[in-house]
């Protein structure tokens, strides 16, 4: 047992630095499809042919409305959900239905609500110690030292280890949840709406913490969020999901400064702003996303799209590069022209 422990400790890390050349996806999903069986009414395609990846030291933001499948993708990446088809890879290695403990440790989750994701009956130190002991990461006095180190990593004092979660504010609890995820030295953090349960005034500090960890530890971060401002502030790349599909993906500046899918434009227009905006497009999305049980024909966004033409109702657009380069892709027939021009038509 002991020997095995030592071996584990030596070989356990999925080294971000070891992943051959830069740009090799550390964690990736390829053509992932997830279906849920709905009672009596056949099945529901929650995620359809989604390919996403994150490299070390990179933060990927996944945005979309509720029901767009972004949480299901996160669960696939974390191994909590088995896709019907498609693969999930970790450092080039295909992950099976059952992950090894090393693979499980490499991908850690941070949940939305820090009030329900922490056990109220366990001291913070106990939670962290249990993890370190169970995974045989530290022994003896090193356990306590590592706990203190984890606390300082997330910006909390060492005294926090002796307190119960109830004595912390929402932002502090989310820091504890992040420390818990980091305890097992993951290569990737998957954060599902990590700031939406927090006050706007503390959201920024938690976001800054993710950016800081990405830079300092070189880990990859997948951040699921419907908060565009949050994604814009910290993410390097952004994927926009609609009805279980990625409709636009690119570097942050590409997607936010030059959105090509009308849905991205509409999302940006819907976000409330602190200052009066002069050139915000008046693209208010009417209605709600259609049910994934009854997908519209052609482009699935066409019933709500201000740009839709006859072609959109029959022909589904593929996710293809927009004019500039290969990194910015959009699934729209009119991706080559700016959606802003649509308003003048």
């Amino acid at each position, binding site marked *: 047992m002991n020997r095995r422990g030592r071996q584990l400790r030596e070989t356990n890390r999925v080294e971000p630095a070891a992943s051959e050349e830069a740009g090799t996806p550390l964690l990736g999903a390829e053509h992932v499809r997830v279906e849920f069986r709905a009672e009596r009414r056949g099945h529901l395609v929650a995620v359809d042919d989604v390919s996403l990846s994150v490299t070390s030291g990179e933060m990927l933001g996944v945005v979309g409305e509720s029901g767009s499948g972004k949480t299901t993708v996160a669960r696939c990446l974390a191994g909590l959900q088995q896709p019907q088809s498609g693969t999930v890879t970790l450092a080039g290695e295909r992950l099976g239905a059952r992950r090894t403990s090393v693979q499980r440790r490499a991908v850690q989750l941070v949940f939305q609500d820090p009030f329900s994701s922490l056990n109220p009956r366990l001291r913070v130190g106990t939670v962290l110690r249990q993890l370190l002991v169970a995974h045989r990461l530290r022994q003896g006095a090193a356990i306590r030292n590592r706990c203190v180190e984890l606390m300082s990593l997330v910006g909390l004092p060492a005294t926090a280890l002796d307190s119960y979660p109830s004595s912390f504010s929402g932002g502090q609890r989310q820091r504890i949840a992040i420390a818990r995820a980091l305890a097992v030295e993951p290569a990737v953090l998957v954060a599902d709406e990590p700031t939406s349960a927090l006050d*706007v005034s503390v959201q*920024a500090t938690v976001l*800054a913490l993710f950016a800081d960890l990405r*830079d300092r530890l070189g880990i990859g971060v997948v951040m699921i969020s419907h908060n565009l401002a949050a994604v814009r502030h910290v993410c390097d790349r952004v994927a926009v999901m609609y009805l279980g599909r990625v409709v636009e993906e690119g570097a942050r500046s590409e997607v936010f*400064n030059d959105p090509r899918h009308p849905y991205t434009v509409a999302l940006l227009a819907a*976000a409330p702003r602190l200052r009066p905006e002069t050139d915000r497009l008046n693209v208010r999305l009417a209605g709600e996303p259609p049910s994934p049980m009854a997908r519209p024909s052609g482009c699935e966004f066409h019933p709500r799209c201000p740009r839709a033409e006859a072609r959109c109702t029959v022909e589904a657009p593929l996710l293809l590069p927009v004019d500039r380069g290969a990194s910015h892709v959009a699934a729209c027939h009119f991706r080559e022209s700016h959606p802003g021009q649509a308003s003048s038509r």
Partner: protein
Amino acid sequence: MSAAAVAPASTSAASSARPAGTVSGAPLRVEGLSISVERHGRRVEVVHDLSFEVPAGGSFGIVGESGSGKSLTLRALMALLPKGGRVESGSVELGGLELPFSGKRARADRRHRVAMVFQDPLSALDPVHTVGSQVAEVPHRVFGRSRRESHARAVELFKMVGLPAPERCYSAFPHQLSGGMRQRVLIAMALATEPQLLLCDEPTTALDVTMQAQVLELLNDLRHRFGLSLVFVSHDLAVVREVCERAGVMYTGRILEMGATTGLLEAPSHPYTLALLKAVVDLDDKLTIPKPIPGSIPDPANPPSGCPFHPRCTFATADCADRSVELRPALDVVTEAMAADSDWAGMGESDRTASVPRAWAERLTACLEPQRMVEAAVANLATAAPPIACGSGHEPPRTAAEGDEQGGTRGV
């Protein structure tokens, strides 16, 4: 379910004065409202001497972090304080008639006049009844209409709040509707009481951005159509800006600053407002790194002396811990300070205050040293980033801006 819907019907003097079936606003006046809660057997005052006014058809936003007492204030207006909560002093007047906080009349006087929209529509609706029957209950029990009339009224209300297929929605259960639709049902239920004042407690926090935009648009639309008065509580300054003409910034149970919302966000006169603005991640702001407010909200049982914000305030002077705070016109305080301070007088009034926008003209501030804020306000106006160009057609090359954006967010 709203309080108005649960209480049995009885006619109140106020409602019988209005013709049935109309919705119209009335001015609200809150004066000297203090609320205490019981904690560990002790009474702790959590809202202190709060006063504000909302004109008929006006909208007032209360912004604050969690624990600032904003939701308690709203619940006191609705006479729905949680157990242990008590209004210690103060009065609420709606359309010139005082609303009592306790006793039989507390609910009866509000029934036709005040309605509330709650934060979480799923827990505010009864899961075992159709949403239609829950809304129809209001005209049936409050106004004594027949079942058939109540049904028709509920469908009419559903149409009014923009629910698709109102007849079909009538027989839907809450779990069958999306979050945005549930919030529309709650708004329909609130309107069913034909209120003069609508209280909203973070009605969009549980919603997506797209649904949030729709619900805010609906609230604005209803307000303008019926002249409803609105009190809107939120922790999100940007959301309050979308709905409210005027807003108060609340901290530890006190309003620290009050004024027109746009001016408040552009040129705050209180350091707390400024700190809050700097802490928020804004979609347009790509150049500035959000700065967290140092320290944490003080324990209401053990508040700091003087200005409640002084322990966390970067502008605080030694005086701030001693002098008691009250809301005063911001420009008066600045002028007084300038008269007293020779350095300031030497600088000349025109240099300093001329650049402070007219927004300060009607501003009330609780800051004891707002002359320092003049500079901050000017600086804030100067650094205000232009709105991002989403979808504005042709733009110059963006390389420089992208570089800044990268530099701004890295290295936090």
